[in-house]
């Protein structure tokens, strides 16, 4: 669990250039981490590469928070 969260966190820091402390399971990409919609699309792409997953568009649309992403990835592994 922690492992997935840490890997997701590393990607978010790299992509969105935000402080590590802001990245909690509850943090919303758009509201708390200052991502625009294209940033979220790119994040999802990177998560797909990192975890070797294919996230369908309909599922990607439900990924709004860091926790959504972590839980989704955990559910697929």
């Amino acid at each position, binding site marked *: 669990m922690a492992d997935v969260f840490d890997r997701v966190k590393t990607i978010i820091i790299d992509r969105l250039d935000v402080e590590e402390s802001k990245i909690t399971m509850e943090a919303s990409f758009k509201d708390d981490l200052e991502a625009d919609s*294209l940033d979220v*699309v790119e994040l999802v*792409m990177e998560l797909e590469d990192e975890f070797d997953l294919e996230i369908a568009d309909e599922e990607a649309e439900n990924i709004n928070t860091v926790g959504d992403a972590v839980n989704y990835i955990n559910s697929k592994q």
Partner: protein
Amino acid sequence: MLKGKNALITGASRGIGRAIALELAKNGVNLVINYAGNEAKAQSVVEEVEQLGVKAFKVQADVANETEVKAMIKEAINEFGSLDILVNNAGITKDNLLMRMKEEEFDQVINTNLKGAFICTKAVTRQMMKQKAGRIINVASIVGVSGNPGQANYVAAKAGVIGLTKSTAKELASRNILVNAVAPGFIATDMTDVMTEEQRERTLAMIPLAALGKPEDVARVVRFLASEDANYITGQTIHIDGGMVM
């Protein structure tokens, strides 16, 4: 300046697509030659551009079929390692008066000419976003701006391509992906060879430069839009029509 870049051109076995392939190859661009049906012609384009010293291969795919397009893009990236330029050129006509146009004639033209551009654009965007660089050049048509009797389907598709160009340009500008269109007028290709002598004369009378264009006239503008010379141009539609529509 374009040397070593990698491009995919849809509908590149003949006409304007073939001319674009030759023009880009002259400038050192490696090419994926997409074609729908004519394998022999596609192969001869591959051989011609290889003689200009670039790497090239052909892929058959229906641009309106997302599965085939995804496989083609994947092959291109596997082969070349990057994809810098997409030219959405594949197009068909099924001309008829509106009153006689069948629904399937409308759908087929929209599917290849408009939906095909959308599918190919979507499929390369992931790679271009990763690269933080890319050029997408859509081959629209001047009739998409002016309208043309007997071509409601084609004109609707080409006007759609111009709109697609603008939306895509706005969405992807922040990732340094530039999207532009060219709008050829009457260019001497198989598509215009079918005009009657009377149609040809009437057409020439509408063109201030009083001649049909050549596929190369279009290809050179595509090369410009793909190059660093066009770094500050996105969302535009450049008319290549001898001044027909201003």
